């Protein structure tokens, strides 16, 4: 059986989760199986230099180093699936994967399980652990191959990076598909970190939905100032326009690793944890004792966050003489 590991990269960079997809596929092989990595983009050389853990690498090579729209990626992947007849396709849970996985599932009719953390295989049967309800529930699912899985970044350890033998790399003629896509990329905007770069912050105070309203952000901001910390927010807070996008932590924001991460009213959806679970010291305040943020917190408190902000602020002001 062939297992296809979908990989990604653009703007001269290969996404780290690509090696995780190869590792996930590798962990499922039985005798005679083959792990085939699929890459679409201009970074063919970088992919070849890293994906040695795969048995073969198929590259849909683009001439320009730009992002390939998911619609085009999916079309290229469909051709690969037609040609290779795989038993399993692993797609990363990424901005691209969100559009690719269900598209392929709809067009092949194959089952799809999303937000996958664990996979066990017994012949052509898989048992899969997937996250639901913002990580509050785990679903043990059964699926018969062929199937598609959308795998969470961080669920599998990266395969060791090594070059792949050039004889095992095949180039796919992709120009016609690349040129004929119905979705055209017209602009890519990489943020200007001049104002704030959370990835370099040593201390972060992050507010979540529990902060309640925009006016209350100032209370958290004052506490951040006392701690010498940057203020940050989870997705709902930024979506509400209460903090700028550059201050968002999580999957569609920044991935941070500060010395101190104080989470106020953050529930800890998987997408948020992906961006901050590596922080050195995580302190979480949330009135819901079952909030998933407590699974990664070193210290947790279930008191009212406003009481805590007031009390902690008083002590810090007293301690610093301000």
């Amino acid at each position, binding site marked *: 059986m062939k297992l296809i590991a979908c990989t990604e990269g653009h703007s001269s960079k290969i996404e780290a989760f690509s090696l995780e997809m190869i590792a996930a596929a590798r962990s499922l092989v039985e005798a005679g199986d083959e792990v085939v990595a699929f890459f679409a983009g201009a970074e063919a050389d970088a992919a070849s230099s890293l994906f040695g853990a795969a048995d073969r690498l198929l590259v849909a090579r683009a001439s320009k180093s730009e992002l390939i729209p998911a619609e085009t990626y999916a079309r290229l992947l469909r051709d690969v699936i037609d040609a290779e007849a795989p038993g399993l396709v692993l797609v990363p849970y990424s901005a691209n994967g969100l559009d690719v996985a269900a598209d392929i599932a709809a067009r092949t*009719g194959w089952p799809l399980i*999303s937000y996958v953390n664990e996979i066990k295989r017994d012949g052509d049967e898989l048992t899969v652990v997937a*996250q639901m309800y913002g990580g509050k529930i785990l679903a043990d699912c059964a699926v018969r191959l062929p199937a598609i899985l959308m795998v969470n970044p961080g669920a599998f350890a990266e395969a060791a990076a090594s070059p792949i033998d050039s004889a095992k790399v095949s180039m796919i003629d992709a120009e016609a598909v690349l040129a004929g896509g119905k979705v055209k990329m017209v602009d890519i905007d*990489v*943020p200007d970190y001049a104002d704030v770069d959370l990835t370099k912050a040593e201390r972060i105070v992050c507010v979540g939905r529990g902060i309640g309203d925009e006016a209350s952000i100032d209370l958290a901001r004052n506490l951040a100032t006392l701690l010498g910390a940057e203020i940050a927010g989870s997705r709902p807070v930024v979506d509400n326009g209460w903090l700028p996008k550059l201050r968002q932590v999580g999957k569609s924001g*920044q*991935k941070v690793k500060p010395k*101190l991460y104080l989470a106020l009213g953050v529930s800890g959806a998987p997408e948020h944890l992906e961006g901050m679970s590596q922080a050195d010291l995580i302190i979480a305040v949330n009135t*819901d004792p079952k909030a998933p943020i407590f699974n990664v917190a070193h210290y947790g408190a279930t*008191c009212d966050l406003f009481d805590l902000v007031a009390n902690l602020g008083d002590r810090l002001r007293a301690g610093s003489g301000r």
Partner: protein
Amino acid sequence: MNILVVLRMIPDSAGELQLAEDGRAIDREWLDFQLNDFDDHALEEAILLKEAGGAKVMAVAIGEGAKRVLQMAAARGADEVVALQSEEDAMISSREIAASIAAMARARSVDLVLCGVQSSEDVFGQLAPYVGALLDCPHVSGTNRIVANGAMLRVTQERGAGVAVTYELATPAVLGVQTASKAPRYVSGSKLREASKTPIGRATPEPSGFERSAEIITLRLPVQGGSGEILGDNADTVADRLVGILAAKGLARN
């Protein structure tokens, strides 16, 4: 432009979730259901497109409390509201409902289908790519800005690390909205009362059309807690402890 926006009612994940007796679903009896947050943004984007360039917006709601949310949609500016019937006490699988949404879009010559990029019950796949593939039209997920110029759409998509990518595509199209161009508006009580008279259409679901699907064997709660220490629920004592912890790690002062 004809816009169809999908509104899914989902369990309030901020509340406590308990498992049903058979362990294959969550116990829905005492749950609060609310509009999927991303679908709320999709509705807002639909109304913003209508205000910017003219459009007819049909809102289709599914699940417990659909009637209430459709009245809200009408109050915000939806021209037509339809409740798509769903199985009572069952989760709303995007894979299952995609065929119904695609059929409605076809029947109404819809130019643009909008829905939230994700829902907490889309373990078997996301709605926008399913509907896009079934309609064989382009789809983009994770949008935070949509601008229409006739039949051309300019769509900005959020990627990780603050990177934003802008695409151009022609209608018909399906977009999975992450964030509306502006935060969803509030509606006044008087507008809501007025909208409560809006007639709500009914639609019956189509079969999903998929022969094979994965299935849920059991649901379970994740093992709680890891190794963290719980400091309790008294803000005064928690603050004392935190000051000590921060001081010990040299983090108390800037």
